[in-house]
């Protein structure tokens, strides 16, 4: 499939794209068991050109989710393990002197991959963290005065251990804002865990799974996501949610305009993923906790401390127009 496909070809292409997306979801579900919702959200995040932050305890499948995403979507994959002595150059790369050519050559770092897994991002120093976050934001890297573009599509999956663990630098709110979504995987349910324990090794499975998409197709899908219809009543709904988040006494910091844009982008991607003919309120509600959870700050006297509950409070309080 080529980028230059004409409008006339689109309907047929669309069907194929949808089929490919469904296959990708199915493949991902077969590797990461019992996490349909999270996988849909991760896919939606990717389709909306956003970056994903997965926050959970170690051993819950964060890495395997990121790896399987790269594999199924046919993206190049790099993993950076963040440690407290990680330097920015370890992330973005360095210029080294090439003896043969007698000149400095840029040696790209692990950030130059279409899907980068930044593991345990909160264990590195803020300096190293910001090197990654700048790359995410600008989609380019400047080393020694030269700008190097990052590949397209570009997708960062950062994982973070809950911040109350020792020796961590939790990401500040301003940095959290750069992630379109924050997910929590949580423990698998009984049945999924049993299937996991009795089944084959996940990493071995991963090798066998064929990629269902490629980078170009993903680009087209991302373009199509932006064309998903957003109706007037839905805009009203998003505005009502945003307004409520700013006015509710339970919430100290409500959603910013960027947060509102993120909400619509994520909802669009989710609607696209589920083949909705437009963005439905259900799409907004499904992505709301992931998009808004890390952007809302509960009021100091509020009884609601959990971001998930806070999101639920907003959704349950705002009528759908």
């Amino acid at each position, binding site marked *: 499939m080529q980028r230059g496909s004409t409008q006339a070809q689109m309907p047929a292409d669309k069907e194929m794209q949808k089929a490919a997306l469904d296959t990708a979801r199915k493949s991902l579900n077969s590797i990461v068991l019992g996490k349909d919702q999270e996988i849909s959200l991760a896919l939606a995040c990717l389709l909306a050109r956003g970056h994903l932050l997965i926050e959970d305890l170690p051993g819950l499948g964060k890495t395997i989710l990121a790896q399987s995403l790269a594999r199924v979507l046919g993206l190049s994959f790099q993993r950076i393990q963040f440690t407290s002595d990680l330097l920015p150059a370890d992330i973005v790369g360095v210029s080294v002197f090439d003896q043969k050519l007698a000149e400095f050559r840029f040696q790209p770092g692990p950030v130059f991959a279409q899907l980068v897994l930044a593991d345990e991002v909160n264990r590195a120093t803020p300096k190293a963290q910001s090197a990654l976050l700048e790359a995410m934001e600008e989609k380019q890297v400047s080393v020694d005065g030269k700008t190097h573009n990052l590949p397209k599509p570009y997708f960062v999956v950062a994982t973070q251990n809950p911040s109350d663990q020792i020796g961590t630098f939790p990401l500040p709110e301003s940095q959290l804002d750069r992630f379109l979504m924050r997910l929590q995987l949580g423990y698998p349910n009984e049945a999924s865990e049993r299937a996991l324990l009795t089944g084959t090794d996940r990493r071995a499975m991963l090798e066998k799974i064929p990629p269902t998409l490629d980078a170009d197709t993903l680009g087209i899908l991302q373009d199509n996501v932006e064309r998903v*219809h957003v109706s007037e009543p839905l805009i009203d709904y998003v505005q009502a949610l945003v307004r409520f988040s700013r006015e509710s006494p339970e919430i100290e910091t409500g959603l910013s305009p960027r947060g509102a844009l993120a909400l619509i982008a994520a909802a669009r991607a989710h609607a696209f993923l589920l083949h*909705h*003919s*437009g963005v*439905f309120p259900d799409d907004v509600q499904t992505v709301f906790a992931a998009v808004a959870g890390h952007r809302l700050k509960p009021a100091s006297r509020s009884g609601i401390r959990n971001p998930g509950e806070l999101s639920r409070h907003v959704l*349950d*309080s*705002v009528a*759908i*127009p």
Partner: protein
Amino acid sequence: MSRRNGTDGSLLASLPYTLGALAFSIAPHVQYLPVWVTVTFLSCSAARWYIEKRRWRLPPAWLRIALAMLCFLAILFSYNQTISGVGPGSALLAVMGSLKMLETRVRRDQFVLLFISIFMIMASLLREQYLWSLPYLLAAVLITMTAWLRMSQARDVSLLHSLRSSSRLLLYAAPIALAMWIFFPRISTPFWSVPIDTSSGRSGLSENMSPGDISSLSLSDAVAFRVTFDGAVPPPSQRYWRGLVLHQFNGRSWTGREPLPDPKARDRISATGDAYRYQVTLEPTRQHWIFALDIPVDWSPETIKMGSDLHLAYTFPIDQRIRYSAVSRTRYSVDSQLTRMARDWYTRFPEERNPRSIEYARELRAAAGSDERYINTVIRAFHDEEYFYTLQPPVLGRDPVDQFLFQTRRGFCEHYASAFALLMRAAGIPSRIVLGYQGGELNPYGNHMIVRQSDAHAWTEVWLADRGWQRIDPTAAVAPERIESGMSGAMFGEIGASWGLNAPAEWLHQLTLSLDALNARWNEWILGYGPENQERFMKWLGMSKPDWQKMFLTLIALVTIGIVVISIVLMRRNRPPPRDPAAVLYGQFTRKAGLPPRTGETPFDYAQRLRETSVQQSDCVDRVTSRYLKARYGTPDEHALQELEDAVSKFRRSA
């Protein structure tokens, strides 16, 4: 327990407004309330505010109950073991409002406080209904409304905004209130009417007269009555407002008789002078006497009767301001013949009192030769000899007329009238004393005449054969300016009439005159809007034969129209956006399903719940849900709405 009595500072923002509103509505009562009630109110408000500020606990229930009992007993004690009436009632209300503060913990209690505030405002109307109290009471209502809004509005709304909202609310209510006031049927003697406490401590004429009575009245600026003339106004020298007639003398004071109506009294008058038509608005006196220009020949309403002494009296004591009209003629003659018994009655006096005066009268009468000449001699004596007209006459002893005529020679109208009447009786001429008012000031702003208590006057009538009763005012001989220019003219010259005794400047005098004109309109049109005025107004509006049913129906119609108009105005202002046809259809669906969607429940979740809780056909539900989402939120599609309509009607048929 601590949770129940504790405060958390959440009322801190709105409490000062509530307390302020309450203070503002209690303020008009303060001068009538016992001091301890005001002290209780102030200390409770201060305590309540401080408790909220420091987040202390409110006093426990037993203490509040004990305080309430104590205050109740204190009110019983302050008001002579009664709690009925305006005084104890408003004191009770103020005290209970104060104590309510001590248990005001949540917003609901604050509501109660503001209700009490409104009630206090209404209660102050039971005490006084002056024109100037109206703006104050309106302001009190406005402040209470604002406090109400402060309580329920979000914290960041400015005070000015709340004030504007409450003014707007009052403005919306104004036309309805006005319609209620105009059309609510008035009943002539409403059984619920509370007599307005205005006559206590106020001066007025009483049914007997002893030296010093009227001069004490002269210090009062209070309005006795107001008169509006239909045509010509009588000259000052003719402005004798006849009140009651005194004819019994005990040597010191003169007394009259109970106001018994005499149906033939009117026929005894043969009047010739100019006729004056006028209306009088009489302030409450708690007595029966009606004042009319000497001599009234016709009057209305029927409840006014004329007594045998040609005085007018009301059937009931005048507890409220009344209005009556009368026709008077200034030249008249009455009773050209007097029976022997009557002549005897009107010449009686105690022989053992005032012996010098009696002796003097008999000597003069013998010297004069005829009654007329004798009267002239006495009048001339008052005029020529050294008699003085003064507001501060010396105190008189056992034989007051003797003392006055021969020693002090200083007196006020009652001294001259009393002395003159005695001199006449001693000489065998029938005489009596008329109490009333003399004078009156024409108010150029309201075109009405004000007669004040300071215009109170006493004069005499003597009976002469063939001429009947003649008015003779001995004061006119001593102080003719009293009769020509009125009371204040006699004392101070032209200016300061309405200030009676102390008018500092001409402009102030003008100001009081214009205020009085306004007050007269207020009395006539607002307070005097009783059954008669209402009937007249209804007729003027074109209602033939107004009765309470017609008025009530009009009232209901007007109030309905008012509410509809205001609602339309408000609805147009806050008009909701036109409803999406898809949303309307979906609304039909949810109503038919019989399960209202929850706030924030998406159509999918709703469909899920519907499947779980009811026996609805799930494929129908799913079809409606998906078509609704498509029509409302999906890519615009001209068939989507039609499909939704089909799905909904199918669902309705199947359900």
